[in-house]
């Protein structure tokens, strides 16, 4: 036993030394939690987490000094499985574990913001555009860097109504679909005659033939489908199977790789699909975003869609959602430095003061009256052809935007 004690003491000293070396080289850890649907919509979860990780790597590389002390950011992912209750439980755990911020897809934020607010922990939504989610007056700790449903719906109405189309709206019964319909109803209220049919469909429905038939009988000349990627794919399949060449319009979920994967056997069915999304390129041109995309690919590889163009080129997906998560993480680092404190409440206040250059070259910031990081005017339209998309030419904003490379 007498021989064993010095040996144990030596081990303990070594362990302590190793630990302290680890801390002095990188600083104290600060936890950033990514709460996203990794099991239900893996692409979304993965891209959000990758965006955060890329920013964290860069922040840590440049050093994060907060109030005279060195820190490093640590990322933890939690799967909300698109379940609000699980999302709330995740946020509770993140808060208890001392998270300095939570990057969230938006699931369950209606309840989870309250849990996070107990310690002032900021939540940043990087996907869900529901109008009621963000309100600086009542939910001071909720921020968003993603196009809002409100903005997308109004831009869709602004784009479609002048074309004189008879629009049939299909939305699924997910929270995303329901929120979208709420906003579309407001957006089209100025010209309600342009909407000839409105239907709610189950989010997990595999066959939408009856709903498509009803839309066709309403003599619709365009289909606006607001829902999860699976709903959009099912709607396109039902229409094209019935040989109905109606044009499709969707929110950003239309660009989700899942839609093209589902329709991979019928690439022509994807042609003409038009979606609205936040623009990826800035007024300064595509170079900043392309630079970000290169860094992203360098770290995580190319996000392959899993389909090919007619010429046989592999189709890739620009890291849009990752960009929003990346931008928020950089804003968070700036807020930490500005607050000179790791207290979540102070960081939250500092988030309203700081500005960073976003991945696409635009300025990203919040203020005390707006916690939205993407303005509604930044919504553009793109149309698919040969499994890749390009900005449309019949919309003033979109027409000015370049086409991003999407093949390898």
């Amino acid at each position, binding site marked *: 036993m007498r021989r064993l004690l010095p040996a144990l003491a030596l081990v303990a000293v070594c362990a302590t030394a190793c630990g302290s070396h680890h801390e002095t080289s990188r600083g104290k850890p600060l936890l950033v939690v990514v709460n996203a649907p*990794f*099991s239900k919509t893996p692409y979304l979860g993965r891209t959000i987490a990758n965006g955060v990780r890329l920013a964290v790597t860069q922040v840590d590389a440049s050093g994060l000094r907060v109030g005279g002390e060195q820190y490093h950011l640590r990322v933890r992912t939690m*799967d909300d*499985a*698109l*379940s*609000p*209750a*699980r999302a*709330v*439980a995740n946020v*509770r*755990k993140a*808060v*208890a*574990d001392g998270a300095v911020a939570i990057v969230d897809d938006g699931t*369950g934020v*209606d*309840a*989870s913001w*309250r*849990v996070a607010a107990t310690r002032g922990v900021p939540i940043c939504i990087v996907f869900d555009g529901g109008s009621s989610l963000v309100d600086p007056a009542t939910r001071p700790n909720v921020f968003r860097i993603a196009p809002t449903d409100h903005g997308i719906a109004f831009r869709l109405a602004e784009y479609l109504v002048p074309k004189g189309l008879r629009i049939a709206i299909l939305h699924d*019964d*997910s*929270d995303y679909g*329901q*929120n979208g319909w709420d906003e579309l109803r407001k957006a089209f209220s100025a010209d309600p005659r342009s909407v000839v049919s409105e239907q709610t469909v*189950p*989010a997990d429905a595999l066959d939408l033939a009856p709903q498509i038939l009803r839309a066709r009988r309403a003599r619709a000349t365009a289909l606006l489908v607001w829902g999860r990627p699976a709903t959009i794919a099912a709607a396109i399949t039902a229409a094209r199977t019935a040989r109905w060449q109606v044009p499709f319009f969707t929110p950003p979920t239309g660009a989700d790789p899942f839609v093209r994967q589902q329709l991979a056997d019928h690439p022509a069915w994807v042609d003409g699909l038009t979606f609205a999304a936040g623009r990826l390129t800035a007024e300064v041109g595509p170079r900043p975003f392309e630079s970000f995309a290169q860094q992203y690919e360098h770290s995580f590889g190319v996000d392959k869609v899993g389909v090919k163009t007619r010429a046989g080129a592999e189709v890739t997906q620009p890291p849009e959602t990752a960009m929003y998560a990346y931008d928020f993480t950089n804003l968070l680092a700036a807020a930490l430095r500005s607050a000179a404190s790791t207290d979540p409440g102070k960081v939250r206040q500092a988030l309203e003061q700081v500005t960073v250059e976003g991945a696409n070259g635009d300025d990203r910031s919040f203020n005390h009256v707006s916690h939205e990081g993407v303005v509604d005017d930044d919504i553009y339209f793109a149309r698919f052809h040969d499994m890749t998309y390009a900005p449309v030419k019949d919309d003033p904003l979109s027409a000015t935007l370049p086409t991003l490379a999407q093949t390898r």
Partner: protein
Amino acid sequence: MTTLAELAGAAREVQAAWNLRTTVAVAAFAVAALAPLVFATDRVADLATGLYLAAAATGLAFGVGVGGLPSLAQGAFVAVGAVTGTHLAGTSTLLPAIAGALAAAAAALAVALVCVRLPAAGFAAATWIVAWLVSLGLTSLGWFLGGTEGRVVPEGLSPAGHYELALALTALAALAFASLRRSPFGLRLAAARDREAAAAALGFPVRRLRVTAATLGALPAGAAGALAVQLAGIGDPAQYGPYLSFKLFAIVLIGGAAAPLGAAAGTIVLALLSVAADAIGSLENVASSRSHALLAAVLLLAVVSLGWNGLVRPGRQRGRPAAPLRLSEPPPAPLTAEALGKRYGEVVAADAVSFAVEPGTVTVLVGPNGSGKTSILRLLAGAVPPDAGRVQHGGVARTLQATATFGSLTAVEHLLAAGAARRRHGGLLRSLLQTPKARAEDAGAAAHARAVLARWELPADVPAAELPVAAQRVLMLLAAAATGAPILLVDEPTAGASPREAARAADVIRALRDAGHGLLVVEHNLDVVRTIADRVIALDAGRIVDTSA
């Protein structure tokens, strides 16, 4: 003063019944109550969620373990509680819980009324469909829980408060389980689970017992659902899919369905499994939610295929010393059959059969196989309706031709279950609350049952399945007599018995006759017939061909 004396008496009883198992259970709950002082808020919230699950599983365990009702809809009853709790949230903490419990019980009552006649496999399948229907309803109809978006509920108790509440609910559910299991209701329910036909022959209201058990089992589920939704802060339909029902069923089978704390033990096992699943999930980069379901399914498969009875087995209740209590006897009444007729197609089972059985006499039916003896017993007992004629009696109990005891019940429990209908203070509520009168009556009835068993040299505390066949037949005779029915219909009490065993059965029959019972016995053994019969009726092809005194 009376109340104080009763409390002191109750305390003495608790002290007398205290054993190692009780010490462990109480210590575990006491230690568990301190968890909020040790763990962080999120962990306390997780533990509270687990305890709500344990409470719901305890309700299910009562139905499965005592009632033999393999319900796969307990998750749906949790959901009913959650919906109620969501809509009443903000009023108080307990009101939604009570309303949730009542709503879940009402839903379970409706399901049980429809499904309880089904065999076990059919009951499981039907309740599984109910679980799916409720899940689909919650997802597609936003009114319930806000659709896939969920419905936010106002803030209420802290996670620590919920934890203590969940612990109390689980403890209450386990105590209620323990009280009801050994109550007259629980014993008759267990008897019906073991052998439905024998229970029905003794006059147990099998269907009503099962419907009641299913309804009671949903009470903690509804309360747990209503409280858990307050803890989560949001009502989320995704939480109430069929997997929840499967998970609760797995918890019950793993922990032990027949023990009050089995569900709590099963919940702990499943929680440990979740930790393992998280670890495996992180290693294999598989979503932990998927590995949870996978591991739970594998464990359940192992439990079912190995025929394991669960982690916790029920303990045996020790008898409390008390003066034997002879339960009230109904007034002696004869049985009369007038022109009874029954046909099964071309076969005549009874043809204008008329006779009477007087109290304090033994009438023996004899005749060749197929002459209609057992059919007439069934007609007299009301098990099948006659085509013609009528039967009048002041109460009958029947023993079956086959040796048909309730295998898991001890001999004394047989007599207690049989005598349940004669109890004055053995109702459901009194048993649940263990009122002084109920406890005194329990003890007296048990003492009387032990005295009866001792007279016939039957071991009181041995499960009936472990008794020799002849002893089982005697036990069923005594159980039939314990129902208090003035007329006993006894079908071949000495079939397969040795001469010594047959003589013993004859002794019992004569003793029952001397006690005032009227007995109608179907018997082939003519030596026995000679020793017991006051009157012999000979049957052939459903007709009385001879009567002799």
